[in-house]
């Protein structure tokens, strides 16, 4: 496994360089002017501001209009009335709840599953490379394709694989009418979450596996010589070592899962209480054509996200905590 050697040597270097004292080399490099330092940063900054920030200014403006594009004659300035409606909108409120529940449960479950799988894979056995490839596959499926796969080939109550397996098992036990649940209707949220957990577990597994493989072996050896059992080693050595990797997985996973649209759109079309925030705004904009209302919803979500994100980034900034300034 060249992967492992690389990960190990990487950490060796990382560990070494993070120990390096800052001030001395800085003085020399700092001679380059501050504008020369900033210049390489500018294209990316300007690009991002123009493409991602400017539209929000427009959103802000649109949000003060009563504007349904299906009724073009009635567009007029409406002040804050759209905002008044945001806070009385039950749909939006339930979308917030759905988003939080979905994100937290998907991130948590896929982290735990990812950790278990990473632990399984962190040990030599015959065909380990192949098994890892099997695990990665769900993450590499196009999300829409995965959602269609779950909807039509697995959950379908008439000919989906899940009910097909139930029929099989039923036949084994001589039952002619095995249960044939309608998965998407009876447990819509769980169904959506399951498909997403399936897709995101490999992602978490990849991050945690890298974490496990970067774990210095001498400490473990020393602990083992001192008579520590595998559980103790896991609890007191592995887990603390993995903390940053767990945090990274949580951060990246949340960023992508909060914004999930494809699975909700494909599996349930937002029905049965599965509409999350992106879907609900999409619906207001794209189905109801309430441009003003959709923008107001978006602005409120935006402000809330910024507040939460600032808080989250402070917490996550522990990712940088131990690193010295270069």
């Amino acid at each position, binding site marked *: 496994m060249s992967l492992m050697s690389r990960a190990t040597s990487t950490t060796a270097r990382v560990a070494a360089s993070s120990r390096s004292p800052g001030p001395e080399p800085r003085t020399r490099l700092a001679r380059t002017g501050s504008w020369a330092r900033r210049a390489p*940063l500018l294209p990316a900054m300007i690009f991002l501001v123009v493409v991602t920030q400017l539209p*929000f200014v427009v959103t802000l403006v649109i949000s003060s209009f009563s504007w349904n594009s299906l009724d073009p004659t009635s567009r007029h300035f409406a002040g804050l009335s759209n905002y008044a409606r945001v806070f009385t909108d039950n749909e939006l409120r339930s979308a917030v709840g759905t988003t939080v529940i979905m994100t937290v449960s998907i991130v948590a479950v896929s982290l735990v599953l990812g950790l278990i799988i990473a632990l399984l894979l962190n040990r030599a056995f*015959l065909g*380990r490379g192949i098994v890892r490839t099997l695990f990665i*596959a769900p993450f590499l499926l196009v999300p829409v394709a995965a959602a269609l796969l779950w909807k039509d080939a697995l959950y*379908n109550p008439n000919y989906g694989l899940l009910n097909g397996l139930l029929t099989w098992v039923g036949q084994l036990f001589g039952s002619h009418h095995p249960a044939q649940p309608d998965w998407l209707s009876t447990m819509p949220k769980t169904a959506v979450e399951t498909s997403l957990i399936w897709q995101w577990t490999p992602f978490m597994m990849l991050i945690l596996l890298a974490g496990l493989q970067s774990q210095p072996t001498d400490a473990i050896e020393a602990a*083992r010589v001192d008579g520590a059992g595998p559980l103790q080693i896991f609890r007191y050595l592995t887990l603390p070592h993995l903390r940053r990797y767990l945090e990274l997985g949580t951060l990246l996973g949340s960023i992508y899962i909060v914004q999930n649209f494809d699975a909700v759109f494909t599996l349930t079309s937002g029905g049965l209480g599965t509409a999350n925030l992106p879907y609900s705004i999409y619906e207001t904009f794209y189905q109801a054509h309430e441009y003003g209302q959709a923008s107001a919803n*978006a602005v409120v979500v935006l402000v809330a996200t910024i507040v939460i994100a600032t808080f989250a980034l402070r917490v996550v900034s522990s990712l940088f905590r131990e690193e010295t300034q270069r």
Partner: protein
Amino acid sequence: MTTHLPTVASAPPPTRNPRHRLPQPPSARRRKGWNTAWGLTAWGAGLFFFLPVAWMVLTSFHSETDAATNPPSLAAHLTLSGYREFFGSATGQSPLPALINSATASIGSTLLVLLLAVPAAYALAIKPVRKWRDVLFFFLSTKMLPTVAGLLPIYLFAKNTGLLDNIWLLVILYTSMNLPIAVWMMRSFLAEVPISILEAAQIDGAGLLTTLRRIVAPIAAPGIAATALICFIFSWNEMLFARVLTGVAAITSPVFLTGFVTGEGLFLAQVCAAATLISLPVLAAGFAAQDKLVQGLSLGAVK
């Protein structure tokens, strides 16, 4: 300091598997049995996880009637009709334009991302600007904003500038979508370049270009590859923008796939064939470079 920091070329390969160097415990046979059980568990779990994918591929080779049986018909004869449908045997609509659009959007935006992210990462890692942490947070925070909130202005902008249904608009949007993560990843990789080596190079009189080529590039290359792969995957997969902003000429594969659910009769095998083929580029790229993926994703944690 430098003794701790082997340069890329001279780094001795560390042990292949650290555990092999551990002293063998007394009962080696029990340990072997334990290993077998471990391997079997891992294989079992892996196959279980892979089952839906395998099922999708198998179904794609079945006829529509065999695909819609309950219990499932495993041994049904195989056919390529699902794939023929995908290539337009019945509808006359070829998937090629959609695949080409996806390739253009993914590769184009990935190149653009690298063009923007590498210098930015350089400015955050090698010769860091002051408050580089805040800058990095700014980049990441744009990633946290719900994309859907900017959709309407972008749509109106595109309509008024005639960029609607234009694949280059998607290139721009996918670039902005992936840029934050790319900067984050690239910074982690570039932060690996030991300052002392840069110092030494400077003392030896190496110019900026030489330094970049001889020292920075070799260390950053795997990082660039990993970043490119991630950007490629996320661009290829994107559907929301593509759905709203394209129509005829610029539709991408995921949008093509959603229109593939036909209103007539059974369609499971066709959909599975389409899903398989559209996922194939990502699957191939991902499998070929899974080592990169591991490394690229995880470096953010340590650096």
